[in-house]
């Protein structure tokens, strides 16, 4: 029986994904290093389910970047709905209990494991540890790497789109987790490649083109950092109270302004200078650097674009927004197209949502969400043009438990067709009532 049927999967797996899931299932030590967008998370979950079916796993721990904990939960909901992973967070005593409790799958951030390692390194044993974004342990002597290496587990899988196979130091560090002792000092790049073959699988999009659609769409659910969450909640509570005391005529414009402000905090917390989205974007940029890919990042807000420009982990960055004059915009666009190596183009909706033709880009990141899905489609179409040679990877960020999630829900329900202008001015009458708008905030 096929994997799809035996596991009752909601969608059929692609051939290379079946291969990847089986690769993991059959190995205690493995590094899955597919290019971003090929579905490493799905393959890991399916590999895990196959082992679960054989009753081989009683305790699994999945270590992920803090901003992606909810994203993993969401992937489990889709691909393994009967499993109930628990996120290890909260007070230290709660976390220490969760390690011990008979819970089959735990999801934890790198930061928490680093904090707890002293308490768990001797008395906790796992059947399997999965390391997501494993490039985080590429520095052998960092505290995170040290902590991860001390977790005791029978099997170890690492996932990364940034395998760094050409960097002996980095790959040695990752393998010191995956299979300690496999790579000794002073081995050449060529030797490394040979030694790791049994434990290493990497596919590029170009290699599995026949399995892929022309466009891969991926939604990444992002957890706000604790600081961001704090700023978000304070802003929301204070402003909701204030709105309650306003005259009816002033309310809708104030609610709309609040929604915009909360969306901006989801993008970047100006108080704590913190952004889970930028952190996630940097992970993506690192992966895309492997193939010198070009990335377009869309946001509605120029200020957000400026923050991304400041913090993005990329040498070549270009703006394209309405505050630039025509010549500057033209120059930036051409420089982006002609650049060699990875580059990002930061475009604002109003300046670059329509009319541009940028087939050179292979990745489009929707940094924040539009009210009107058709505007997103138009933005994506900038890169999805004649002349593009590779699969287009469209990534949409969505902050969980925030206005973004509520807007997404409403869009999905198709109850309303939003007018993008709704966020811009109160002079235009929105199609949502005050009560409905308030629901988005609350």
């Amino acid at each position, binding site marked *: 029986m096929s994997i799809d049927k035996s596991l009752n999967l909601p969608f059929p797996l692609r051939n290379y994904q079946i291969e990847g899931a089986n690769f993991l299932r059959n190995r205690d030590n493995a590094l899955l290093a597919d290019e971003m967008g090929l579905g490493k998370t799905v393959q890991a979950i399916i590999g895990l*389910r196959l082992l*679960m*079916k054989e*009753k081989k*796993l*009683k305790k699994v721990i999945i270590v992920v970047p803090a901003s992606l904990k909810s994203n993993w939960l969401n992937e489990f909901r889709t691909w393994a709905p*009967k*499993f*109930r992973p*628990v996120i290890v967070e*909260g*007070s230290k*005593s*709660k976390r*220490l*209990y*969760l390690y*011990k*409790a*008979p*819970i*089959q799958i735990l999801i934890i951030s790198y930061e928490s494991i680093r904090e707890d390692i002293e308490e768990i390194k001797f008395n906790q044993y796992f059947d399997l540890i999965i390391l997501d974004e494993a490039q985080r342990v590429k520095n052998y002597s960092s505290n995170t790497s040290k902590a991860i290496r001390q977790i005791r587990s029978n099997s170890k899988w690492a996932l990364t789109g940034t395998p760094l196979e050409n960097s002996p130091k980095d790959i040695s560090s990752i393998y010191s987790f995956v299979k300690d002792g496999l790579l000794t000092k002073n081995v050449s790049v060529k030797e490394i490649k040979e030694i790791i073959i049994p434990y290493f699988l990497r596919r590029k999009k170009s290699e599995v083109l026949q399995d892929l659609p022309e466009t891969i769409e991926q939604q990444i659910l992002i957890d706000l950092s604790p600081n961001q969450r704090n700023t978000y909640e304070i802003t929301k509570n204070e402003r*909701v109270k204030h709105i*309650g005391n306003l005259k*009816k005529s002033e*309310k809708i414009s104030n609610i709309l302004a609040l929604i915009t402000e909360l969306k901006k905090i989801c993008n970047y917390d100006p108080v704590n200078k913190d952004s889970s989205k930028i952190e996630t974007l940097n992970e993506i940029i690192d992966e895309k650097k492997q193939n010198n890919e070009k990335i377009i990042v869309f946001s509605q807000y120029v200020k957000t674009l400026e923050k991304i420009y400041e913090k993005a982990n990329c040498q070549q960055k270009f703006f394209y927004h309405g505050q630039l004059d025509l010549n500057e915009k033209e120059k930036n666009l051409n420089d982006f197209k002609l650049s060699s190596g990875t580059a990002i183009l930061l475009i604002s909706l109003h300046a670059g949502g329509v009319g541009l033709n940028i087939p050179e880009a292979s990745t489009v990141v929707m940094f924040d969400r539009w009210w009107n899905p058709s505007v997103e489609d138009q933005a994506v179409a900038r890169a999805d043009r004649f002349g593009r040679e590779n699969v287009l990877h469209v990534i949409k960020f969505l902050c969980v438990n925030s206005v973004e999630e509520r807007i997404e829900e409403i869009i999905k329900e198709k109850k309303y067709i939003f007018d993008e202008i709704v966020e811009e001015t109160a002079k235009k009458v929105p199609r949502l009532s*005050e*009560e409905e708008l*308030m*629901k988005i905030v*609350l």
Partner: protein
Amino acid sequence: MAKKDPKKTLQYWVSKKGPRQEIKIEDIGIDMFQVRTDNVERDLDELKQKMETAGTNLEAICVAKMENEDSPYKYDLIYGQRRLQAATDLEWETIGAEVIDEYVPEAIGKALSDMENSHVKTSDADKRRLVTRLKEQGFSQNQIVKDLGISRNTVRLIFWEEDLKPRVNEARKDSGVSVDIARKLQDRLTIDGEVMVDQVVEFIKKMENLNDVRRKEMVEVISEDANLSADEADEIALENTNVDEYKITLSKKLSEGVQKMTEDTENSPEMQIVEIVQDRLESENIIEN
């Protein structure tokens, strides 16, 4: 509306708990019901000592058949995680458990878990969480009162509060207006299925410094004419209010209520509230001491 399937009642599931038996600790997992994780280890050493003394006389934990056939565990814990953790720490191999040998629906398992934990902590928040969860599952007020033994008044108020618009509820809390009155206001000011939230909030704010008698009168006034502003309704309410008449009616109602609640809930948190209210009414000479 509550579903009529007999399996939906909590009583059915409670009755499915088998007699206490010893089951292997390694067969018990925490999965679908994801029982509480806060403070599990608080005072655990004390519990361990008690358990060492009590041995197999320990109160049984409750588990259900594990629904996920791929799980390595046979049973899904419903409640008793502190006892389970203590037994694990003591390296016991088995533990006394009441087993429900069927797949228990998630909401039911969580409700059973909440019920058990509510013996330990009976906070309003716990009750609210439990009642809300069951309401979402389609349980009626009557079923919840019957199955859980929570007072009818508490269940009714939670149901009502859940039905309030968020802004109405917030204004109500800020102004110290009861759920009862806010709900009636919201009902009266619902036109063609749409709640006039601004108007309701305006009334609630107006009520902030009024006593309950005036508040109720305002509700009566707008029942007759929903187009009145809060100021207008208050003026009419003031004219309509025969203070002496209200005092007599209120006094009777309260005495009956206090008598009933005393019988039902002696020493309960509700009773303490009644006592406070009674003191206040007496001090304001609304009812005689």
